[in-house]
């Protein structure tokens, strides 16, 4: 064993680089993030500005010339919106909604799940029963209630997704933490007289994280898909500012009519994004897992 002095970051980076697939994923993710961040600069058109889109240019196939002589690389949707710009902007919203809602839900879930497992007793009972209620409340009903009370908007969708998902994490965390809690190392940490907070966050949390990361990366995708489903049911984002999901569900009805591009390209963009996130996350999970470290 050679004693090379490595910072933790260097170690993670070099471990990460052992997988070529993960590197490809990282590159894809970088592209996706760049597009999402710089959508307003990269897009040929602002697809959310109603004055810039023209109904007379609607449903043009990729490359087809419009009335004004312009041509659109990926065609236009049923409002005459440039698909490419729509996808860039949509990516921004979808990623934002997916990541933000998952992070928020995850944090809430971890806090409540750990609390339930650690304190046990009444706290556990209360949190778990609230979870029972939460999990039985359909996302659609929550979204509809929020829509009726608060109106339409990205923030409302995020609230709805967080409300739907946090209980899910809480239960998963609690399950894993209950097992960890009774293992020797925790007993030992307690024996050493470490504070609850220290044990929770330095010892318990890192060890319950791996199954959680699996669920979370899947859930980012799921959150994006759920947002698409809500849009499909008419409960999603404002229709003039479509996310990827909304683009897909708008184009959905054109699938059988041969105008594939309205739904296919946003679908492809969504797929690539999610594949990239998961390739990176898979490798990160292995690298970060305290027990998988060589």
């Amino acid at each position, binding site marked *: 064993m050679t004693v090379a002095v490595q910072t933790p970051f260097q170690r993670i980076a070099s471990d990460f680089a052992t997988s070529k697939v993960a590197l490809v994923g990282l590159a894809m993710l970088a592209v996706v993030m760049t597009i999402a961040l710089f959508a307003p600069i990269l897009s040929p058109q602002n697809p959310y*500005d109603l004055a810039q889109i*023209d109904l*007379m240019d*609607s449903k043009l196939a990729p490359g087809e010339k419009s009335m004004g002589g312009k041509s659109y690389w990926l065609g236009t949707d*049923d409002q005459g919106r440039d698909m490419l710009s729509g996808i860039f902007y949509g990516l921004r919203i979808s990623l934002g909604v997916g990541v933000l809602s998952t992070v928020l839900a995850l944090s809430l879930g971890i806090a409540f799940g750990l609390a339930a497992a650690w304190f046990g007793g009444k706290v556990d009972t209360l949190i778990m029963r609230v979870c029972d209620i939460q999990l039985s409340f359909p996302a659609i009903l929550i979204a509809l209630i929020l829509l009726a009370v608060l109106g*339409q908007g990205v923030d409302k969708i995020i609230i709805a997704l967080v409300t739907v998902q946090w209980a899910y994490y809480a239960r998963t965390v609690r399950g894993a933490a209950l097992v960890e809690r009774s293992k020797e190392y925790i007993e030992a940490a307690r024996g050493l007289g470490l504070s609850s907070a220290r044990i929770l966050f330095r010892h318990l949390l890192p060890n319950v994280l791996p199954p959680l990361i699996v669920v979370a990366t899947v859930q980012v995708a799921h959150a994006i898909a759920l947002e698409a489903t809500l849009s499909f049911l008419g409960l999603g984002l404002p*229709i*003039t500012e479509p996310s990827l999901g909304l683009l897909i569900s708008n184009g959905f*009805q054109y699938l059988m009519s041969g105008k594939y591009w309205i739904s296919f390209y946003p679908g492809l963009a969504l797929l690539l994004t999610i594949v990239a996130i998961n390739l990176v996350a898979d490798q990160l999970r292995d690298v970060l897992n305290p027990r998988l470290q060589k």
Partner: protein
Amino acid sequence: MNSRFIRQLAILLVALCATLAHAARDINIGLQSAITSMDPHYHNLSPNNSMMQHVFEGLIRRDDNQKLVPALAASWKSVDDLTWEFKLRKNVRFHDGSPFTAEDVVFTLKRVPNVPNSPSSFATFTKPIVDVKIVDSHTIIFKTATPHVLLPSDLASVMIVSKLHGEKAATEDYNSGKACIGTGPYKFAEFVPNQRVVLKANYGYWGGEEPWDKITFKILTNASARVAALLSGDVQLIETVPTSDITKMEKDKNLSVVSKVSNRVIYVHLNQSTEKSPPFIFDKAGKPLDKNPFRDVRVRKALSMAVNRDAIVDRVMEKKAVTAAQLLPDVFYGTSKKLKPTKYDPEGAKKLLAEAGYPNGFAMTLHGPAGRYINDDKVIQALAQFYSRIGIDTKVETFPASVYFNRATNLEFGYMVLGWGTESGEQASAMRSLLATRDPAKGMGVNNRGRYTNPAFDKMLEQALVTMDDKKREALIQQAAETVMGDVGLIPLHYEVSTWAAAKGFKYTPRTDQYTLAVGLKPSK
């Protein structure tokens, strides 16, 4: 042994052919909306009313163009302003074989307002009748308190049930089929809420036998699922073909797509209820306006001129809509041929806005339902495009019907996209509900969500409603329509076109009332 085998085989083959031939007379139809009950007086709702036409009949029926034609009544006439005489059809029998008489009509009129828990009753149609007299078993006289010209039209919406079976029956007994016994061309076989309705032919139907033995109506809410069911041969007829698929389906040789302009107009109500800025209407800095712009006819006109109706019909509706100038297409009674759809003129609209004191426009949120009318959310987006071109800052907010209509009724919006289907098929009733000055006690302006008010128009309409002479009345209605449309009481956008698609070998006769009736489906040869 051999010959016996062959004989058996032959018998088997014949039997098989018989079943095949038989099977060909069984058809499946894909419907868009659920049927909530098989009680014809429980829920006044289009899908229910359409279904009831198979099992039951009214005294009068509406044909494909919503013209009134005799059904259980062979003829009718108004004796004087307050009296109507109906001659009933003879030798008509209910599905159980019992004869149809005037007693059944009287029983029906008594039952209609008294169906427990009815979420929307048919009493509106029977209320004008204050007295009923049976002259003989097949002649009946109705008395009204005030002249009521729409009586025949109202009665066309009331299905006649059997007194024998209906007397002790509750809604559940109709749902189970026990009391669901009418005179119509089909008999009840099965009703599974939210799933299917199965009917069997009534071979003794007075109007002649229908070509089908058994019809299964399947509830296929999702439009793409409905199309897929037709393409895969699971159903032979579907209603409300999604516009996105129509072009391709019309080219498909294995399908026959038919369409017809409907009695439903899509329109915009502009909230004129407030002195100052109505909800969601602001100046460009986001501050409320000090007067309600929609009370100015120039603004209303500008908002109508800014709309490119042809583009909506062509691009959003895939040509399955007709640009609108009034509340019903001009083939219907009481419509004016003089009214033409407002021309698209963004420059003129800008000029009018400037004249009205809004040279830089204002800010406005358009509200509408998502999924209630054909392509409603797309129409609203297109409207937003048009308004942003004349300098109005436009936003769009759509809601599911469950949220939208409540808030629209509570006048929580400024610019509301709505739809109205005129079941009676004549324009006076639509104007009465949508444009007359609101006066709930008199049943005027019940759905006037714009709170538009115009005394001159109100007077014309009221006069028309009590004129018994058909010709004179029509002229009055037309005059009222021209007045109110000239004043832009609301902004008509387009009339929906209803579409049906049938599999090869079948032909459907389209209707204006958007009903899907098995009697309209025939083998194409």
